[in-house]
């Protein structure tokens, strides 16, 4: 899985995932995601190009949320497709990391 990082206005860091967020996908981004979560306060996870989200991918997101929130920051998910959103909601992870489908409202929720 690919992971790209963009800096947005308002000190928001956008993390763009692209591919399958399965075990191999999670392993390939965990280290980089830990660095982001440990150093940035406002994190937006762009899931538009994630075709599959498994439990290891969920754990990556929950772990990042725990770290960011523990440091007084905010984190949100943007643009998951229907199946990925179902995984986020069925697991209850959406109660920790809010899901947005509009980029501006996602960014606004972090301010």
């Amino acid at each position: 899985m690919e992971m790209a990082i963009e800096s947005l206005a308002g000190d928001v860091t956008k993390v763009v995932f692209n591919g399958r967020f399965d075990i191999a996908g999670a392993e390939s981004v965990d280290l980089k995601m830990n660095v982001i979560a440990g150093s940035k306060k406002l994190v937006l996870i762009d899931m538009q190009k994630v075709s599959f989200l498994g439990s290891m991918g969920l754990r990556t997101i929950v772990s990042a949320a725990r770290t960011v929130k523990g440091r007084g920051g905010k984190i949100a998910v943007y643009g998951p497709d229907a199946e990925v959103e179902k995984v986020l909601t069925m697991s209850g992870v959406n109660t920790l990391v809010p899901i947005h489908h509009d980029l501006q409202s996602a960014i606004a929720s972090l301010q």
Partner: protein
Amino acid sequence: MSDLQETAARQDRLTTSMNVDRANRTGEEQLTLRSQISDLAMVPPWVEHLASHYGISEETQYAMNLCLEEVLSNIIRHGYSNNPDCRIIVRYQSSQDKSSLLVVDDEAPLFNPLAADEMPVEDTLSGTRIGGLGIRLLRSFATRLEYEPTPAGNRLSMGFPAAR
């Protein structure tokens, strides 16, 4: 082992049972995995093959991939404690009503994953470990879950809705 040998070895482990009724698209197929996380890469192509052969919907295909990843990775990491020389057998059964059943057999010490606590998500955020999400996902994405101990180890059966 060369890439070619590896591919051949993997294909050897992809076996189809004799009991396939092509007219009614019912039957049983089997995938045998080594207890290695790298072998999980064989699962999505196998599920895709099943989907095209038995007319499984994309939604059910997604659910099968999700549940298999969770169950198989738990067996490898916890049941077999990362011992790479064990095996896991996954059987797919399609029935007349087009519903799908996945049966996972291992030879690990007895463990009933359905008896494991479903940890509140709040605890996964504040707690020291992240777990309990898996069983929540299984219960959400499989329509039926059954566990039974076997003489060799454990058997978990997961049901999924009828194909299109």
